[in-house]
């Protein structure tokens, strides 16, 4: 392990500046959108009084969930003492923090009164899962920052395992909290399920790792550093397992719901006759975000191919966004059961309409851009990346 040398990237190439500029434009566009939405009011968005959480929430929750999952690689190394992952720990912590920052930016800027952030920071209702989440998110920054410091500072290295344990526990609680945002909404048929929390945890594993793999491969490719097959194949396998488990949970969730008579309405809606939501569920979430990536990872023809792994990761990210869209928007679009046994002819009911507006989409993408720009800058200024991850370095005992 002593032969792992961490080094900053040079960050002087044209490509580097082009990347920064491109991401910068996306972030500016997001800020412009926020100004537009705040200045005129949210009537310029696609939201309404039935669909109160729109596209920005899809991105924000996706990024927050992915953030905690991105820390997994570090956790596997610290908590489960897997040496192969140790050189990747620093980057894992960095990706986790960056994704969280991006997600929180979107969440905060989508508030009706983002100028009152200070209220959110000072007034807590401890009965609210949301208030707990604010504490959990802020705590995650601190815990992971300390963990990174333990890894960076040679004298502190011996504490890094303990810090890793704390960070691991914290991230599990954090994702449980995020999943519980929905689990606690008894009024909405689509959400009132205990399985939400564990499902979000496993979703976080898959989404976070997909991000991590893309960032890892891109940074090694663009800086011409060696990245061996040992690391890549291991991560690829892990990703395959995670996405399979996500699909298993989705199946259990929907089958469980179908079994409960009170939920058959919303299940039919999502699975069979929900129009756009049904299409997004089957084509987007299940096929594009599940089966195809699994095939790319495991099929002999594509297995071990890095471009295909990259494609699988991108599809998992897109599929994940679609999954959150179906959960968040679809769950709101389906009407609440106000009068069981009765039909509402007028005044409420029907499927609520929503189509995301450009500013909402732009704000969401801005969050992703913020996360990537943070990683890009920080790997330039601090030694996050091992100078080589070639097979003989990453795993000296590896044969062949």
């Amino acid at each position, binding site marked *: 392990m002593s032969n792992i040398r961490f080094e900053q990237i040079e960050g002087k190439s044209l490509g580097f500046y082009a990347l920064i500029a491109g991401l910068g434009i996306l972030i500016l566009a997001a800020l412009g959108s926020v100004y537009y939405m705040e200045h005129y009011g949210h009537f310029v968005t696609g939201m309404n009084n039935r669909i109160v959480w729109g596209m920005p929430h899809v991105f924000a929750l996706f990024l927050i969930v992915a953030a905690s999952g991105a820390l997994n690689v570090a956790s596997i190394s610290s908590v489960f003492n897997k040496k192969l992952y140790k050189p990747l720990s620093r980057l894992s912590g960095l990706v986790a923090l960056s994704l969280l920052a991006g997600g929180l930016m979107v969440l905060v800027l989508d508030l*009706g009164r983002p100028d009152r952030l200070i209220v959110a920071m000072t007034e807590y209702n401890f009965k609210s899962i949301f208030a707990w989440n604010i504490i959990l998110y802020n705590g995650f920054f601190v815990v992971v920052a300390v963990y990174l410091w333990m890894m960076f500072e040679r004298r502190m290295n011996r504490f890094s395992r303990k810090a890793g344990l704390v960070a691991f526990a914290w991230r599990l609680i954090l994702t449980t909290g995020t999943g519980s945002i929905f689990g606690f909404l008894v009024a909405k048929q689509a959400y009132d399920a205990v399985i939400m929390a564990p499902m979000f945890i496993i979703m976080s594993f898959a989404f976070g790792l997909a991000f991590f793999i893309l960032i890892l491969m891109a940074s090694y490719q663009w800086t011409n550093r060696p990245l061996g097959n040992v690391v890549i194949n291991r991560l690829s396998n892990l990703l395959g397992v995670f996405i399979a488990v996500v699909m298993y949970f989705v199946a259990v969730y929907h089958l469980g719901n179908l079994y409960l008579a009170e939920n058959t309405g919303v299940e039919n809606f999502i699975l069979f006759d929900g129009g756009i939501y049904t299409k997004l569920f089957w084509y987007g979430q299940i096929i594009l975000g599940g089966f195809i990536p699994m095939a790319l990872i495991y099929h002999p023809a594509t297995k071990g191919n890095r471009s295909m792994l990259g494609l699988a990761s991108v599809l998992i990210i897109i599929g994940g966004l679609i999954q959150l869209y179906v959960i968040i928007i679809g769950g709101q679009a389906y009407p609440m059961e*106000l*009068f069981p046994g009765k039909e509402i002819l007028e005044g409420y009911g029907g499927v609520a309409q929503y189509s995301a507006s450009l500013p909402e989409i732009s704000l969401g993408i801005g969050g992703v851009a913020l996360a990537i720009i943070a990683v890009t800058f920080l790997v330039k200024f601090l030694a996050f990346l091992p100078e080589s991850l070639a097979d003989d370095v990453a795993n000296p005992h590896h044969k062949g």
Partner: protein
Amino acid sequence: MSKTLNRRDFIKTTSATTIGVATVASGITLTTFADTNKTPVTNEKRWGMLIDTNKLSEVDIDGMVSACQKEQGWGSEVHSTGSQKPGWIKKLKVKDKATGRISNLALMCQHCEEPPCVDVCPTNASMKREDGIVLVDKHLCIGCRYCMMACPYDARSFVHETLSNQKEHMPRGKGTVESCTMCVHKVDKGGIPACVASANSDAVIFGDLYDASSKINQTLKTVQSAQIRADLNLNTGVRYSGL
């Protein structure tokens, strides 16, 4: 000791309640909307409403809606689309699937005793006064809309645009959430809500649920009434009969 007001044990507990409150009174007095009133808001009262759907015509309900709009100043938003416009009180037409019977009713915030909106609000902007009225503190609301997600009655609205000509007693604000206040500004001065005043006094009764001598209490003892989504056990302050 719990001071819930289930319909079944409503009659049993009403007399015991007044003794009970002395021990439960939390000492916290929410006077945000009641500063014109010298007497603090206490939990010796529980304001409620009983809506008799048999006695309300559609025209009556339209009248209630416009009385509320006029009183509280919502509904003249110019930019918001139909589904974005606030709706503090709505007219609902409901048909029984088995019998085909149609009833019309007015639906507004039900002023739940266990309000999910208050539970989920991260900043305590959604709050329940001691007398059971559920309000949004417009100065604490950050516009996260979690309360709207949590309300089982679709009772809350988000203000989608800049407003002008607001009522002095009702400072509404772009980017915050609002809902029926049970016309707390009138109730605190001894008045009754605007929607109640607009309907005939048999069809909508307003009053103190705990007060054994109040008309609402007496009527609830004699007629069949129901809470919407009673299965959620929120113990709503607004009750319906003839549903």
